[in-house]
């Protein structure tokens, strides 16, 4: 992934790089305007319709395939698999032009002619776009809830809402990545390339890492951890797993972190979704960084870190 910041236009050459302040009223004003703008786009209405159709179709499918054992949990397990894959795409699609597009059209000058700091604009954009994504999720989830309530044998409202909330946090993480990258680029072409880079990184590269690490372990480049477990027929089997740090790399992926955190807030066990570790593999207990609560921190990391970098950089470039 590469970002263009316009070589030679860094303002730091004046030895004078003022950090702008954050004003919550300004952030709110920018977010409101951005929301008003984006909520009128076909993208938003398309998304809402898409979510609703998706949820209703999945609920219908589950109740048809497994009418006796269709629970809220099994619904969430299935839908979260789908959300894990499509939320990033939608967030990148909604967010990639957030700043780069306004810079290209020049309308960023309208925002910055007003008493808003660059940080206000960045935060306002992130909140506005996330609000649009959240609203379309909310519409889709709530309408679909009606279908789910009738289809499942036992509806769990708290689990459903927790699932929605975590999906919104997941969306916020990818929106933070998208808007931040958008602010680091000068053109929408570069921003688009950056979004594609993110897509490749988490959809392809990250998914291959675990396989790659396993291969490296088999060839002896990585020292595995050997443990014994009881096999199906009762005998003791000695197997090898990846070391903790290698397992952690897999946990960093926002999608994995998202699924792991759902288990925190719903009664869903990690057997169904997210990362699962056999108990026998960790006789001394799971290290804290592989536990589900740590995944929440990872998700928060993906919100905070891209944003922090963007807040720092965006203050220092020529518009």
């Amino acid at each position, binding site marked *: 992934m590469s970002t263009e910041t316009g*070589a*030679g*236009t860094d*303002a730091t*050459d*004046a030895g*004078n*790089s*003022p950090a*702008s*302040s954050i*004003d919550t*009223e*300004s952030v709110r*004003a*920018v977010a*409101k*305007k951005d929301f*008003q*703008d984006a909520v*009128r*786009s076909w993208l938003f209405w398309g998304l809402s319709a898409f979510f609703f159709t998706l949820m209703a179709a999945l609920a219908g499918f589950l109740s048809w395939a497994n009418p006796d054992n269709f629970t809220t949990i099994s619904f969430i397990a299935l839908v979260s698999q789908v959300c894990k894959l499509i939320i990033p795409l939608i967030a990148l699609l909604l967010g990639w032009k957030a700043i780069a597009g306004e810079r290209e*059209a*020049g*309308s960023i*000058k*309208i925002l*910055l*002619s*007003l*008493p*808003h*700091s660059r940080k206000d604009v960045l935060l306002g954009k992130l909140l506005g776009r996330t609000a649009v994504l959240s609203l379309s999720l909310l519409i889709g989830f709530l309408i679909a809830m009606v279908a789910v309530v009738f289809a499942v044998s036992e509806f769990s409202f708290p689990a459903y809402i927790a699932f929605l909330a975590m999906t919104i946090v997941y969306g916020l993480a990818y929106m933070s990545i998208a808007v931040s990258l958008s602010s680091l680029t000068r053109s929408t072409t570069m921003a688009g390339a950056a979004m594609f880079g993110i897509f490749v990184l988490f959809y392809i590269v990250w998914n291959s890492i675990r396989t790659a690490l396993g291969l490296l372990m088999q060839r002896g480049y990585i020292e595995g951890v050997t443990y014994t477990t009881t096999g199906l027929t009762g005998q003791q089997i000695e197997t090898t797993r990846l070391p903790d740090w290698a397992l952690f790399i897999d946990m960093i992926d926002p999608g994995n972190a998202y699924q792991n955190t759902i288990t925190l807030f719903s009664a869903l066990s990690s057997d169904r979704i997210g990362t699962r570790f056999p108990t026998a593999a960790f006789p001394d207990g799971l290290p804290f960084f592989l536990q589900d609560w740590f995944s929440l921190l990872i998700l928060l990391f993906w919100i905070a870190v891209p944003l922090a970098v963007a807040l720092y950089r965006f203050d*220092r470039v*020529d*518009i």
Partner: protein
Amino acid sequence: MPAITVDELTKRFGQTVALEALSFQVEDGEVFGFLGPNGAGKSTTINVLLDFVRPTSGSASVLGMDAQRQSREIRQRTGVLPEGVELYDRLTARQHLEFVIDSKDATDDPEALLERVGLTDAIDRKAGGYSKGMAQRLMLAMALVGEPDLLILDEPSTGLDPNGAREMREIVREENERGATVFFSSHIMEQVETVCDRVGILRDGQMVAVDSVEGLRDSVDGGTTLRVTVDRIDDDALQAVRSLPDVTDATVESHAPPTVVVTVDGSKTAVLSALEDRGIEIQDFETTEASLDDVFQSYTTDTETEVHAQ
């Protein structure tokens, strides 16, 4: 206290020098025309004033505040009409104005603002369907929100028809009478000459002249051209006119009817008297002032005209 002070401002973009040690002041309460051909550095100067770009060296202050460190306070009290900017296609004029009013914590009425710029009809139409002129009117209305102490208008006449440009100048005058300082950039002289108290001419990132409109006229060769139609003309009379202190040149333009063209810097009646003293009857005369366009041309193109930067 000057409304704008630019001090030894230099801005480079890579190898390109956009501004080179630019210095000038805009006094509080004046209408200042910031004139220069495209690419002279007008927008870069405005971008520095609004902290869109950071100076390579030198400094700028606006309303007595540092353009970089106190940018938010500056922009709270400044109305800006930026150049080359697209509006938000999906938002109406009302929504655009509400956003500005909200942002500046002002109390203006969107309808009243649009009435001033003549865009009331389009108040609830999305800006995506606006013509260039309509977009420019809306942006002018947005600049007026909150009775700013300073108006920075970057090429405000872009996209406006002559009538629209006249209305825009009228608003500039009204705002100035209210007490606002107006900083007005243009690449067309005639846009600024009727409203501006002073004009600064920028060329290749440097200020080549700052003066009142009258002062600029006087600073360039040319002055006033006097065209006198007479009943007859002779060399003696022509010599007498040429010897007048204010006259730089006098030629016979045609003989039927005899017409003398005199370039004069001062009293025109002295020319007429000199002719009458020689018994020449004056049938008609007209004066043409050196057009400011000529002045602008002389400052911004490579001619032999000597330029005295002030």
